[in-house]
């Protein structure tokens, strides 16, 4: 038997720590890592329920989460490099102006 309650709570804690990272950190790279942690928590939940319900659907969802995460990280890194070239900073509070 797998400890379902425990896995749900681990997934919840990981997701909430990711949310907190997105909310309270000021470095744009830390926000990116918080997003990745949230995606991982969702993957853990999908795979747990795939195992519990005996249905492979959850694992397919996780596969597509991987694809989306790869594309997302690449695009965010391109955007961050562009902004860093302009502002020489990674703090989100310095990104509020849309002009140069």
């Amino acid at each position: 038997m797998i400890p379902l309650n425990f896995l749900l709570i681990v997934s919840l804690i990981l997701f909430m720590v990711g949310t907190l990272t997105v909310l309270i950190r000021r470095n744009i790279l830390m926000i990116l890592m918080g997003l990745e942690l949230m995606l991982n928590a969702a993957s853990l939940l999908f795979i747990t329920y795939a195992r519990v319900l005996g249905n492979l659907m959850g694992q397919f969802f996780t596969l597509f989460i991987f694809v989306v995460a790869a594309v997302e990280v690449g695009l965010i890194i391109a955007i961050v490099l562009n902004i860093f070239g302009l502002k020489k900073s990674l703090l989100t509070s310095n990104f509020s102006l849309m002009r140069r």
Partner: protein
Amino acid sequence: MDTLNVSFYVLGALAVLGALSMLLSRQPMRAAVSLLFVMLVLSGMYALLSAPFMAVLQLIIYAGAIMTLIIFIVTLVDVKGDDLHKVFSQITLFAVPAVLGLSVLIILHIMQGIPAAGQPPAEFGSVKNFTRILLSQYALQFELASVLLLVGIVGISALRGKKEESK
């Protein structure tokens, strides 16, 4: 309490510790290594949850590709001044109670009872089973994922590629 349960408890505790260390570390590089640790631990949990293929993909894609990109960008940009000192934003005082309250609500909901885990079918989650269903029943979604990757590549080259000199 059997060994499977104990492994889950150990891996879960390690994952939570890694995530907290990511949240609280002041340097982005330490946070990135903590996140890498969380992903390795999660890969072990996937293997225990009879998803060996997803465990390998987690190692290759997340730990191998995505975290490499993030660590690369952390080393590429050199920050100075304010970036090193202003770590936490001013809304921390409001964000922490809000997130804690939401967590308590969800935990109360979990405790009200959820379906118990049965025994999965034989060969559940094996590469053979997984790919057979993926490439027959979900072939369209699989192709759409490759289109998404192509769009990502085009977008990144549009953002970062050198502009051609206009004559």
